[in-house]
């Protein structure tokens, strides 16, 4: 496992986003700074209107900032055009959505293969790659099932397999457990942690402390700025750590995230905290 913190995969500086809705001007992001290192597992939290969704769209290269810089894996993506951004999304970003977003008439395998349809090259061996991705999410026995033949958890696994197919720089999950029951939630989060332990950088956007507790680090937003940026142990979400440990022990995935979070981010994570250090619940 590479040493986390040595290379910043996401480097955001003074990011602003201004929307104009009719005559109204909405400042969704007001000079936001954020840095995420390779192989971190970060939760981004905030109430609605905090700029959480806007930040996620920026990080996912679905939108361009009004001003500020965003370096993804060393490249400035903040001034790219729609076509270039599409390629970046294809190659660097794996999206996981709350409502899975699977194509209903296609099999699990075909759904997982979808990013290769738009890949600029290297589409050969697609079947093996898609099968390998499904294997990583533990669905190798369901490859020919259509979404309506799968449970919610299985659907989200297919979506995750699709997201990791192109070995993205970041796995970006937007409320990935929002449509799942608590048992399945634990399983899916365990899967995220498993991928994280395999070296994947994971960013989860959520409003649930229980979900955030699975991450190493929690970034809280308010009014388009970073409110707090703390290792999980120091965040209020950390109070769920015991529950996470208990739940993941049940599922059978090592409860590494919480432990690691406490261990290795304690030293430098305080540097990320831009405002007051005290965890404040939203």
């Amino acid at each position: 496992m590479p040493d986390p913190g040595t290379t910043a995969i996401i480097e955001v500086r003074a990011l602003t986003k201004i929307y104009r809705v009719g005559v109204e001007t909405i400042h969704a992001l007001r000079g936001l700074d954020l840095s995420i290192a390779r192989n971190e597992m970060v939760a981004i939290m905030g109430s609605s209107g905090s700029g959480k969704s806007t930040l996620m769209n920026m990080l996912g290269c679905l939108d361009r900032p009004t001003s500020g810089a965003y370096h993804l894996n060393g490249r400035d993506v903040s001034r790219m055009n729609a076509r270039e951004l599409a390629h970046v999304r294809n190659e660097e970003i794996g999206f996981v959505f709350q409502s899975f977003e699977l194509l209903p008439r296609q099999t699990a395998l075909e759904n997982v293969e979808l990013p290769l349809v738009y890949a600029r090259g290297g589409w050969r061996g697609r079947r093996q790659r898609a099968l390998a991705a499904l294997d990583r999410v533990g669905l190798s026995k369901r490859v020919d099932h259509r979404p309506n033949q799968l449970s919610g958890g299985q659907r989200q696994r297919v979506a995750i397999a699709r997201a990791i197919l192109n070995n993205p720089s970041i796995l970006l999950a937007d409320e990935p457990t929002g449509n799942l029951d608590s048992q399945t939630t634990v399983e899916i989060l365990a899967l995220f942690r498993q991928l994280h332990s395999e070296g994947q950088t994971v960013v989860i956007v959520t409003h649930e402390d229980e979900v955030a507790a699975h991450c190493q680090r929690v970034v809280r937003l308010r009014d388009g700025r970073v409110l707090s940026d703390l290792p999980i142990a120091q965040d209020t979400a950390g109070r769920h750590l015991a529950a996470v440990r208990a739940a993941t022990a049940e599922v059978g995935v090592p409860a590494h995230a919480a432990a690691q979070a406490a261990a290795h981010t304690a030293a430098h994570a305080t540097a990320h905290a831009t405002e007051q250090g005290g965890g404040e619940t939203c």
Partner: protein
Amino acid sequence: MLNPLFWLQAISLAFSQIWANKSRAFLTALGIIVGVASTTAVIAALTGLKSKVLAEFESVGASKFFVFPDRPDNAPRNMYPWEKILLKPAEVRAIRDECTLVKAVTPITEVGLDVESGDKRIEGITIAGIWPDWHMVQNRFVEEGRPFTSIDVDSERQVCLINGDAIKELDLPANPVGEAILIGGRRFLVVGIVETTQARFFGMNTSSAEIFIPFSVAEKMQDRNFFMRIEGMFTSPELAEQGEDEVRFVLRRMRGLAPSDPQTFQVAAIDKFIEQFKALATGITAIAGGIVGISLLVGGIGIMNIMLVSVSERTREIGLRKAVGATPMAILLQFLLEAVTLCLVGGFIGIAIGRLAAFGLTQIPGAQLEQADIPFWAVVLSFAFSAVTGIVFGMFPAIKAARLDPIEALRHE
């Protein structure tokens, strides 16, 4: 830029999209189907009619020519009265005697007269006055008895030729040669039976009752300014143009026309008619093309409408595809391909129906369309037009899809 997998999935997606919405796709493509089907059927009918008519022209004889009076264009009626421009017997004699390229020529004048034989009396039979050369010009000879000779014409003998239908209508014996009949109250001797040709010209059956008398006799039975036409044949079809010039020259001299004077008659060889007919057929084909253009326009609007529905229905899907890396161009091509596929499927069904209709046309008795067939170019053109319709009318929805904001699209309900 776009990999083969993209094209593969785009095409399969286009077809699966049609398959998933079969009835909707069918109704949408109906405009295209009807347009292509009707056009291919019309083209098939025209093609059949054309080959049929051209074959009939051929059977008439490619070296044949006609002369008829014609008032010059834009000329005042009083300057060229009818009696002045009518063809005269002297003129046809001049053509016969002076035109070296004319192999055979005959004047034809028709007069309606009552014909009697025994108790039978038929009113208003068309009696044609002809020369002996008529047999060669018309390619119709006598079955029984003898043809006219120059003596019949020169000495104005009251003899006649009749055909089988006339024999039947007049209740004459099977071989009436030597019988006498009354034509216009005058006694005529039947000297021969003219063969009845089954040749049909423009669907008109020429095998009705026919009676022929020497031209010199018919001349006497007509009014002073009677109408006659001239039919003849040149020594060969290749010499038709020189032959026409020759006839024109002789007639102009006969009529004393100065080189600057307009022509008061027309000389037309059969090839002129063939050209005119071909031009007509091409014109009708072009009109049929215009009709298909309109129906494809209507069909195309349907395609555009359904593609807009499709784009709006699949907004989330478009958002997802964009999220996983589909470029605007990839989305555009995807939807364009879908519209084109829809149109091509419509075009294919249309051609199939058109072919069926063409077959149906060949089965209509007496419709002269036995040779109706869809030419290959019409098939190619129909597909091309369908594809162009898909591109033109699919473009707007495809651009709309390509320009969708992925965030908005993913949020779409």
